[in-house]
């Protein structure tokens, strides 16, 4: 008996050879460019989800600055310039909060829709490495979240840079009006030249009130480091961040959003349920993390530090943190949790926590993808 091998090709050529085609189909664990772009297409075409992400990330910036620009244009006497360091800080914090949530929702969707739509088994049957299928979701989703956040942040930066009042020439420290742009030595000199003014304002004197100028000068000399720190902080909070500071803040923001996406992807892949994963991450971001960042639980401080939001707060760029602090303690919701209520952790620990979350959740998601019945 003879069997006939299939000779029909729907468009390809049989001369390519079985082995070559097989090898191409197998691929390795690295996703191909086509795999990434088509996955990106699949996420992008989810109109409702993308609109939600845009509304959460971009809409607050557009709305707030749009109204402020409009009011200022209509009545410049009553309404000041649209931008200000405070608005910049608040919008950036809002972007970080909502960006994390939006990215987590997008990640959860990317991690579950193949399964829920019944495409997962089609994809597995192609013979493509499951790991490659999982890894393709990472750049595919980040290629959506990162530009959206970048767009919103760029608007924030432009308005702050071009529509903000000029930086103040003086800084108010402990009730004293001090000239701006002083270094530590200059500040010390300036304070030492005005001991009575310092004393009468109840200034930066620690301990019992000094009775004479010599004691005041001695106190200033002793506490100049902490005085200068407060001075710098106040100076930064009153000025728009410099370009390099804005770049740092932007990178920090993208990292926050990227973590949200990766954790959402991993958790979504693990649970296989988009809604569950999204709700869990919203709760983490707006309830658990702010609480743990603010309240020091006895004997559990290192456990608190394992929360990625707390590590990210510590990584928050100085310019943004100072702005947040100047605005008072962060709100429980929406105001960011920038005012850490617990002692800072070492840098290596902070980086370990962040890297651990990124790698850990990616590994968990990939493991579930590899072992899941299709």
């Amino acid at each position, binding site marked *: 008996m003879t069997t006939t091998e299939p000779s029909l090709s729907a468009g390809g050529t049989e001369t390519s050879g079985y082995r070559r085609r097989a090898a191409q189909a197998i691929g390795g664990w690295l996703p191909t460019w086509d795999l990434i772009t088509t996955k990106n297409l699949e996420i992008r*075409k989810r109109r409702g989800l993308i609109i939600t992400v845009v509304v959460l990330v971009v809409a607050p910036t557009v709305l707030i600055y749009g109204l402020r620009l409009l009011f200022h244009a209509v009545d410049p006497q009553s309404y000041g310039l649209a931008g200000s360091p405070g608005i910049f800080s608040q919008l950036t914090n809002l972007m970080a909060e909502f960006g994390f949530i939006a990215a987590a929702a997008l990640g959860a969707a990317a991690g579950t829709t193949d399964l829920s*739509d019944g495409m997962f088994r089609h994809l597995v*049957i192609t013979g493509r490495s499951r790991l490659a299928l999982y890894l393709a979701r990472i750049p595919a989703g980040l290629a959506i979240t990162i530009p959206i956040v970048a767009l919103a942040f760029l608007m924030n930066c432009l308005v702050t840079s071009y529509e903000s009042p000029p930086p103040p020439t003086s800084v108010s420290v402990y009730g004293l009006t001090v000239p701006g742009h002083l270094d530590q030595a200059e500040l010390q000199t300036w304070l030492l030249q005005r001991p009575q003014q310092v004393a009468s304002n109840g200034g930066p004197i620690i301990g019992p009130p000094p009775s004479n100028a010599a004691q005041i000068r001695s106190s200033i000399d002793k506490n100049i480091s902490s005085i200068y720190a407060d001075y710098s902080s106040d100076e930064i909070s009153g000025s728009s961040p410099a370009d390099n500071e804005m770049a740092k803040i932007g990178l920090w923001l993208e990292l926050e959003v990227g973590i949200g996406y990766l954790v959402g992807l991993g958790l979504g892949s693990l649970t296989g349920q988009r809604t569950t994963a999204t709700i869990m991450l919203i709760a983490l971001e707006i309830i658990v993390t702010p609480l743990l960042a603010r309240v020091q639980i006895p004997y559990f401080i290192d456990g608190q530090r394992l929360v990625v939001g707390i590590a990210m707060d510590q990584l928050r760029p100085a310019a943004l943190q100072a702005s947040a602090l100047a605005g008072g303690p962060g709100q429980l919701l929406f105001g960011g949790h920038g005012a850490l209520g617990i002692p800072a952790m070492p840098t290596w620990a902070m980086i370990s926590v962040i890297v651990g979350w990124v790698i850990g959740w990616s590994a968990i998601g990939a493991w579930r993808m590899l072992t899941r019945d*299709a």
Partner: protein
Amino acid sequence: MNIIDAPAIAHIAPGPARWAAVAVGPLRGGGFHLGGILLPLLVIGGVAYGVTRLRRGRRAAPHDDQWIRPEPPPPPPSPPSSPPEPSGETAVVPAVAPALGTRTATSLERPAGGWAVETRALTKRFGANVAVDGVELRVPRGSAFGYLGPNGAGKTTLIRTLLGLTRADGGTMSLLGLPVPAERKRALASVGAIVDEPRFHPHLTGRDNLRLLAAARGGDAGSRIDPSLERVGLTQRAGDKVASYSMGMRQRLGVASCLLGDPKLLILDEPMNGLDPAGMHAMRAMITSLATEGRTVMLSSHLLDEVQRTCDAVAIVDHGRIIRQGPIDELIRGAGAMVVHVDCSEPARAAQLIEQAGIAQGTEVSEAGLANAGLTITLPAAASRELVADINRRLVGAGISVYGLQEIQTSLEDWFLSVTSRLGEAS
């Protein structure tokens, strides 16, 4: 802050309290301690490891990379002159059937090109339920092969196991001569399959769904999107979202997705499900044409008539076990019998006469219903046509008027019901 002195407690407290004090010591507020991070990580890791071990133990799957329990290597394939021996209830029928139409013959002797699908003692369990029970399946290359069984017989589970969508618990299997799971990826490069209902991303167009699958396949699959769509008659609707597709269109899109890999083997699970008569006709024609091209088509179905119309050979599965397999006409002939309907004037007397005469061993006589007055006689499969003539002579000789004698072709359905346990359930 009220801080407990953990080392002090550890020093004075006995047993668990001492260990607990040592454990929480690094978690005290203030400084940062490596133990504070490591301890929770170790606990979480330990729990995760334990859960994984438990699940593995239940599934009896020893390693992530292994989709089936390690078995000794399969014995070398039998030469054409000695087909595999039946094992248990599995009956392997020797080849005698000629090719159907222009297609390749579907003998269950090992064909020259080997088997498109071959399993040995393949087993898949879900807890205590054995969904696939030591299945010995042979699908000849180039055939249209029906995998037939009632609902819940384990058809889809077998297909999912073959394709690596779920792990097997025992046995060996190969696709296109390549052992799986060892060579699964290579094998799947030349396999197209629809498992269960064909579902796609509803928010994407048919073409975009195929793009996604072509990207996963790699190679020149992308260039086959348009020909595949044309082949299944979906070119006009390729730009519409799948959400707007009918079931028949989704089935056709499923076939198109199979064709992206220019497959040598197509595995179609219940492709007629949900189709109207026209859709079934179109799907049948498509399957037939794919088989005619020399592709192996393995068709799982519970629709007996469709399998009989479409396939050359069939395996009957029931309760996870294959109970028969072979060319359809061969199986029907071998398993059934010659059934003769006698249209006569006195059916009751005729029945009595034939029973008393003992014309042939195993002969059964029954009166037909009123709507079809007469007598139905079931003769052994080996009965000759001369025996039918003998019956006629005896009836006429006894004064019974015989108006007609008709040999009734046993259908696959009759045979299926006779060999599966579902006959009792159905009745």
